[in-house]
């Protein structure tokens, strides 16, 4: 069995720095649709895709700031804030997705 070598922390931190800069905009600016072509803009599929992209960026940011904190280039407060914001964003996305699915179910269950 071959165990792949663990990359040095410095490399991951350097890779993370660009990500931190790219994703620091939060929900407001992150996540411009990576989800595919056929769906019209504003469709549920598109919005869900954007939300998931944005969430991915925020959680990546939290991971990277934690790495920075561990490497000594960010404060523990920054890491705490990033992870709190990631947690809140996850809860928000989950709440909105539940609401959307509930709305869809309400329409589908409408007696015709």
């Amino acid at each position, binding site marked *: 069995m071959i165990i792949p070598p663990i990359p040095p922390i410095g490399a991951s931190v350097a890779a993370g720095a660009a990500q931190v800069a790219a994703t*620091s*905009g*939060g*929900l*407001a*600016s992150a996540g411009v649709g990576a989800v595919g072509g056929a769906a019209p803009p504003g469709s549920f599929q598109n919005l869900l895709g954007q939300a998931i992209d944005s969430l991915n960026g925020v959680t990546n940011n939290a991971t990277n700031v934690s790495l920075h904190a561990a490497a000594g280039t960010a*404060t523990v*407060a*920054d890491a*705490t*804030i990033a992870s*709190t*914001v990631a947690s*809140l964003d996850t*809860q*928000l996305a989950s*709440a909105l997705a*539940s609401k959307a699915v509930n709305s869809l179910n309400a329409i589908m269950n409408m007696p015709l």
Partner: protein
Amino acid sequence: MSSIWSAIDIAGTGTNVDQTWIDTIGGNIANMNDAVTPGKPVYQAQYLSVGERVDPSSMGAPGVGVGVQVNAIDLGSAKGENQYDPTNPVANAKGEVEYPVVDLGSQMTDLIQAQTSYQANAKVMSTAKDAYEAILNIKA
């Protein structure tokens, strides 16, 4: 810094400033006994000059501040206090050495203030998180 969770970000600027404050106090206390030959450059105590954070990219509510920032680090007296200590290796011909002007009493009270301020900002963060979670937990 722009986020829909602005209160947490604002409190974060506060904890960052308080962290810097505690760092400078630590530096001042650590260097308070740096004896030099009179006339040589002596350690100058560091004091923070802070003010309201200015960030045009902020997306908070109009007119609401976006936190606090360190504007400058001011330096204390460049002239130290001479003390008679002829056995000190850095003493001059008159047997005097020069110590930095760092008042341990005021540094310690500043440290207590900085700690309290840090805790207050952390409390704002925690309360804001609870508030945001309260609205997110409304399921019905």
